[in-house]
């Protein structure tokens, strides 16, 4: 076949030789290589390229590319949701109601699926939205990198199935042999968990659930059983007590449930009311509560019982009742009759609280309350509280039979550390057939157990809390379990062979509660509401319907035989030599959270010391024996010896020393390794069947060494007692450079204040319409009238309500990503707290007056920091905020120097990547889990940058945006800007304050609470007003409630012991 021949063009058709010559080459025309590479071209282009240059450039390029590829650039992943969960909007927080292990109902703020902040639930009838320091800090326990990540069999990680089957096999064996099974737990506030434990134990012939508390309250229930036949801890109505007596009882700091007690206390301490409670405190240590008391009497622990008898007798004599034998002990200044006078005047509206874990003392206290008619009024035995259910006798029984126990389950219990029976448990666990710890984090006990079945953190769990009879709050998970852990309730149910999940058990338990709700909703509606609100009440705890009179709780009758027995026992208490008080600190408490760096860095409200345990020494003892701050003392008691640094504590009873529990954890996580410090639990002893928190027969020697403590405040008075000035030559105690008037405004008599309210702070008039006593050359050039249409943020802090508890400090830590810097840096006076609580003493050091003053950036209108910054990194906002632009800050520190309040904090190091901060700062870059707690709305500051309180500007911004979204516009119909509603925005410190001491809002809003205070409250003043910084934070004068007599007595005593003591300064 003939294929047609195609030609590509005329040239091919013609087959000209020129054409044929070209087609034989691959490229029909020459590629001008020569021309391209010729020197002529190179000249034209102005360079000369040769092979060497090419190789050089290539070599350079290769090397540069290689080197730059070697640089380790941080990898950051931003992964969008493939399927966005319905309820998560990135950047917008979700809030869930839940409860802490301490039984405080909280709202957990979650960002992108991780909880970052806990706030007290304002709907809770118990805490009213307040929260304490440990509650605020408990969020960090969720992100504790030391937590158990999986079940453990011995010291190796295991699978749940394997652990479960091994435990089941052993349990079966024990069951068949009729062996002893015990659960040891702290007070479980969850009724459902208690029932899960009960159903687990029900399968065994000899089984028992033993409850203990590291700080035992067992004597209270015991005494109530003896006195009134009810083995409970009653509800105390501090808010109904006009006269309040605390005996060895730090109810504002550590005792029972300080949050709700503080909030009740504050209700009665408002000078705006017609009446203010009078608070007496009898104690050995200077506690937070004692420092808030109107009158305080230091007594030794061995004298406390006698003092109670004297008080009983003084009251009884006035009421014409029979007195108790004994009672020869007398308080200073005739204290018992002073107190008795007031108590008798307030019969039925007074309250004596005793924190001594001794049934005799508790019984006498019951006696006093009984003859005063307080039972059923300020003390409600019919509404018990369950914060502490531990029983010392149960615990003793368990310790006695430890060696015969076959299976022991530690459910939130760490007896090897926090009981005096460490040795007994240690040896018994080793020989036990089955020992299981359900701890969330390795502790001294779990390290010994054969199995660890790690529990969820409470923020990962389902559960419920009934801390006060009839008031329930829910525990719901706020995050998926981070590690391979399992809820304790589920573990118990699994081991008991049940197939139900704990969450189902919980729901079925709440069915009963649903039945008591009167609103006729279905269970699902009820349950949804509970999850939203967090709180539900049993019928009897619900507020009475209007007009329906509730029958007063029947007053129990006091068993008089018990009383006289107690009296004779208390009278016998005698102690020789010095005594040791073992107490809890507000931050560390019983040591369960000792691994929490926020709490370690929280200064003790009284000693202002962080990170360490120490021996508190009475002022007088230190003076007489030449003991200096930080001297190491050797303290021996009953053959045991400990060494610790001395902290001189004014107000501590003569003849006593103090030592805190909760320190010296051997297995408390990486944070506790940062400081090695004293464990006081081995010093506890059992006395008459109860754990006693004091020891007698103590000897103390100086060792001649010193130990550095990290104290954030080394000056304790408002003046330097070593320097005199001839300013007030009358010889009064003002004979020093006394700054009190400029910094603290204080009135000793509530009655006087009520008579002359205008005279309180020496500056007539209120903050907004005061006629200034200070003359200024610069009349108001700073105040722009046009700014009145904007918001002007301002704060007022009531010194009368602030108890110094430190909840705000930790809350600020959490909200504002404040770095934890560790002991060494604190010791160098470089703590980063944006809010601090200054504590000042006045009066005689043996029993001083104490005042607390929260201090943070004052957001001055004439801010000294703003004018001196060379780069305008700190500037004033339209809304009166003093703002920090971290990115602009170059770190000259001039602003901090020029701040009269010294509230600015400098990042001396890079606290998130310095090696020294690895174990202390949860936000350290080597701690991937700890960083989860960071608030994404707040920048983590780099080194070399200044930072300080921002009035929680991120919350203000959020609140303003919310208001605009709600209004649907940024302008109101009348053209004015939409402003957030008063009270809708709360700063972190304000939100957490259990006493409501902090008020915050818009000063330009005439209806705002803060405006009213600034306008009308005559107690309002500014700190060092004379400097004319015009702060946006005001303080309200502290009003104590002392009688004229008491004031005179205190003054006389103060005159006697003039401050001549260098230590105080």
């Amino acid at each position, binding site marked *: 076949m003939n294929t047609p021949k195609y030609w590509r063009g005329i040239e091919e058709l013609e087959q000209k030789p020129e054409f044929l010559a070209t087609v034989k080459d691959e490229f029909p025309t020459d590629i001008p290589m020569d021309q391209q590479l010729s020197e002529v071209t190179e000249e034209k282009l102005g360079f000369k390229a040769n092979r060497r240059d090419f190789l050089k450039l290539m070599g350079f390029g290769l090397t540069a590319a290689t080197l730059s590829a070697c640089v380790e650039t941080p990898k950051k992943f931003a992964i969008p949701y493939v399927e966005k969960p319905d309820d998560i909007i990135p950047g917008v927080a979700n809030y869930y109601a839940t409860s802490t292990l301490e039984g405080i109902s909280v709202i957990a703020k979650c960002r992108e699926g991780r909880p970052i902040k806990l706030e007290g639930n304002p709907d809770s009838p118990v805490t009213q939205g307040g929260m304490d320091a440990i509650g605020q800090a408990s969020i960090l326990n969720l992100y504790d990198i030391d937590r158990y990540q999986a079940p453990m069999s011995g010291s190796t990680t295991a699978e749940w199935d394997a652990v479960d089957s091994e435990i089941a096999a052993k349990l079966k064996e024990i069951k068949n042999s009729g062996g002893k099974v015990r659960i040891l737990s702290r007070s479980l506030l969850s009724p459902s968990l208690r029932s899960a434990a009960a159903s687990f134990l029900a399968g065994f012939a000899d089984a028992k659930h033993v409850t203990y508390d590291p700080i035992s309250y067992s004597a209270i229930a015991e005494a109530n059983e003896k006195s009134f036949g009810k083995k409970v801890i009653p509800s105390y109505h501090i808010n109904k007590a006009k006269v309040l007596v605390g005996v060895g009882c730090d109810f504002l700091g550590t005792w029972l449930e300080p949050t709700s007690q503080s909030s009740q206390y504050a209700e009665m301490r408002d000078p705006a009311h017609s009446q203010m409670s009078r608070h007496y405190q009898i104690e050995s240590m200077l506690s937070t509560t004692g420092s808030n008391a109107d009158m305080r009497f230091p007594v030794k622990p061995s004298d406390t019982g006698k003092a109670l008898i004297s008080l009983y007798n003084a009251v009884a004599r006035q009421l014409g009742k029979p007195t108790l034998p004994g009672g020869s002990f007398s308080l200073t200044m005739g204290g018992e009759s002073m107190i008795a006078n007031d108590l008798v005047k307030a019969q039925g509206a007074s309250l004596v609280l005793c924190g001594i874990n001794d049934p005799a003392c508790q019984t006498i206290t019951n006696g006093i309350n009984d003859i005063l008619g307080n039972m059923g009024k300020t003390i409600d035995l019919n509404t018990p509280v369950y914060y502490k259910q531990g029983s010392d006798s149960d615990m003793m029984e368990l310790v006695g039979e430890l060696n015969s126990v076959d299976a022991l389950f530690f459910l939130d219990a760490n007896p090897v550390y926090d009981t005096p029976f460490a040795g007994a448990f240690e040896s018994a666990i080793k020989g036990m057939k089955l020992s299981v710890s359900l701890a969330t984090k390795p502790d001294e006990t779990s390290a010994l157990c054969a199995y660890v079945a790690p529990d969820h953190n409470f923020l990962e769990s389902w559960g419920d809390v009934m801390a006060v009879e009839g008031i329930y709050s829910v525990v719901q998970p706020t995050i998926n379990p981070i590690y391979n852990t399992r809820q304790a309730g589920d573990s118990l149910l699994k081991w008991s062979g049940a197939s139900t999940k704990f969450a189902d058990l919980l729901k079925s338990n709440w069915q009963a509660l649903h039945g008591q709700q009167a609103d006729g909703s279905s269970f699902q509606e009820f349950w949804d509401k509970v999850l939203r609100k967090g709180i539900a009440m049993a019928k009897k705890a619900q507020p009475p319907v209007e007009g329906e009179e509730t029958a007063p709780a029947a007053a129990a009758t006091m068993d008089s035989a018990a009383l006289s027995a107690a009296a004779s026992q208390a009278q016998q208490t005698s102690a020789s030599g010095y005594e040791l008080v073992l107490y809890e600190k507000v931050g560390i408490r019983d040591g369960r959270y000792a691994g929490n760096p926020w709490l370690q860095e929280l200064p003790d409200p009284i000693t202002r010391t962080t990170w360490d345990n120490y021996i508190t020494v009475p002022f007088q003892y230190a003076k007489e024996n030449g003991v200096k701050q930080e001297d190491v003392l050797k303290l021996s008691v009953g053959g045991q010896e400990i060494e610790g640094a001395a902290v001189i504590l004014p107000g501590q009873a003569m003849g006593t020393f103090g030592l805190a529990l909760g320190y010296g954890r051997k297995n408390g996580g990486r944070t506790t390794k940062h400081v090695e410090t004293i464990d006081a639990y081995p010093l506890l002893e059992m006395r008459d069947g109860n754990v006693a928190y004091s020891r007698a027969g103590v000897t103390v020697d100086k060792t001649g060494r010193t130990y550095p403590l990290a104290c954030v405040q080394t000056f304790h*008075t408002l003046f330097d007692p070593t320097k005199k000035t001839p300013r007030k030559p009358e010889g009064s105690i003002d004979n020093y*450079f006394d*700054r009190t008037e400029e910094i603290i405004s204080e009135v000793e008599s509530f009655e006087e204040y009520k008579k002359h309210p205008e005279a309180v702070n020496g500056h007539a008039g209120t903050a907004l319409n005061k006629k200034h006593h200070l003359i200024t050359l610069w009349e108001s050039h700073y105040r722009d009238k046009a700014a009145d249409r904007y918001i002007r943020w301002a704060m007022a802090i009531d010194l009368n309500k602030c108890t110094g508890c430190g909840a705000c400090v930790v809350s600020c830590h959490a909200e504002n990503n404040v770095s934890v810097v560790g002991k060494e840096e604190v010791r*160098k006076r*470089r703590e980063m707290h944006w809010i601090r609580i200054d504590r000042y003493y006045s009066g005689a050091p043996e029993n001083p007056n104490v005042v607390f003053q929260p201090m943070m950036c004052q957001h001055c209108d004439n801010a000294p920091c703003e004018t001196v910054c060379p780069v305008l990194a700190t500037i004033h906002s339209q809304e009166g905020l003093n703002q920090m632009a971290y990115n602009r800050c170059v770190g000259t*520190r001039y602003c901090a120097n020029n701040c009269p309040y010294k509230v*600015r904090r400098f990042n001396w190091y*890079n606290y998130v990547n310095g090696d020294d901060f690895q174990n202390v700062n949860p936000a350290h870059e080597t701690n991937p889990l700890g960083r989860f707690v960071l608030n994404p709305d707040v920048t983590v500051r780099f080194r070399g940058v200044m930072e300080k309180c921002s009035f929680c500007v991120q919350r203000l911004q959020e609140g303003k945006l919310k208001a605009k979204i709600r209004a649907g516009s940024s302008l109101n119909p009348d053209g004015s800007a939409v402003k957030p509603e008063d009270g809708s925005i709360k700063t972190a410190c304000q939100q957490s304050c259990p006493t409501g001491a902090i008020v915050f809002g818009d000063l330009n809003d005439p209806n705002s609470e803060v405006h009213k205070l600034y306008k009308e409250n005559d107690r309002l003043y500014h700190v060092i007003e004379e400097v004319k910084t015009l702060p946006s934070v005001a303080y309200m004068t502290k009003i104590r409630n002392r009688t004229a007599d008491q004031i005179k007595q205190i003054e006389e005593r103060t005159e006697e012991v003039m401050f001549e003591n260098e230590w105080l300064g």
Partner: protein
Amino acid sequence: MGHHVSPIRQQWVTNTDYYAQITEDISRPIEAKPNLRWIAAFALSFLVLMLFVGAVTWTIWEGIGTWGLNKTVGWAFDITNFVFWVGIGHAGTLISAVLLLFRQAWRNSINRATEAMTIFAVICAGMFPIIHMGRPWLGLWFLPLPNTRGSLWVNFNSPLLWDVFAISTYFSVSLVFWYLGMMPDFGSIRDRMKRQGMKIGSKIFALLAMGWDGSNRTWSRYELVSLVLAALATPLVLSVHSIVSMDFATSVIPGWHTTIFPPYFVAGAIFSGFGMVQTLLIVQRYVYKHENYITLDHMESIAKIVIATGSLVGLAYMTEFFIAWYSGSIWERYIFINRAFGPYWWAYWIMFSCNVITPQIFWFKKIRRNMVITFIISIFINIGMWFERFVIIVTSLHRDFLPSSWAMYTPSWVEASILAGSFGLFFTFYFLFAKFLPTINMFEVKTLLHHPKQPKHTFEVGEAN
């Protein structure tokens, strides 16, 4: 008789008969090889400079945390060193500018060295505002440069910014003045080196001399420019340290917030500067055998200025105390009582005795002319003036308004090294200057020769001794 006899003018240059001898005396060390003593001294300074470099590097690497500062005391050694070194500089400017305007002939033989001292002291001073920053790599934010960072600008209210302008102006004027003053001498050295066949040296000095030809026109222009520069530099003697003092005076901190600071600081600066001048010149006249140029009369004049400014400083110290009492303000009263009798009492009394008491022995002529004692006193003055700034900064900050924040400051080894190292920086520069540049203003000293004789024969280079 009967006709007026003018008093004999003071001899500011002794035992020198010829212009050429002056040139020879001053230029010889530049042309000669460095001797062992110089090498040893320079090596030591350089070593100390390396300490400075090391400590500063460590600070920038780790953070300001390596220092002993805290939440209460935010400045200590850093700004103390800054003010100290700026103060040192002032004597140089006073000598070169103010004394020129006042036609004080005796300045001619010491102005070169003191101006050099000024330049190097200001270089040392200028280091500290940068080192003391938390983020020194952002130092350029101090400059009002047009930028793309939005509306960010510097804060003209801040005294730290005034410092930037004050110090940079001071440095540039001083540098130009110093350089200009050396040009005629550079010309002489260039010519000498050429004659000796020193090719590299003569080329360098030819460059430095910028074509100086010694013509009448050049000279008259030179005189005019130096007069103008002197007039420019004169207010700087007062303004620079006044502005430095405002770092403190404009604040609200008791002990800083005081109107006396500008004159007080200027007096202190001149005082400290002359102290340092004494130290340096005594060494110079000894090492370089410049006794004929820097005579005992010179040293006596300087001692007189020292006693005057020292007493002024003493007066200022006492005025501060008086005003603190008179003000009736407890803050002020306390801060001064605390300064003298508080925990830093030792620093205060070192300051007081070094600055106020020791210079008083200069009332005795014998002591003014005794170089050993003068040297010792000058060291005291240096120490005292350093402590003055330390006392002002640290004792005011460490106990200000709220006693809750009162704290103590203890320096770290890093800060101590930076302080010591800054002397290394200063002396490294100074020794380089002393070796490679004319330490005495040759042409101006020549004007002081009363009856210069013509040498009997033409001087050959290197002949006259």
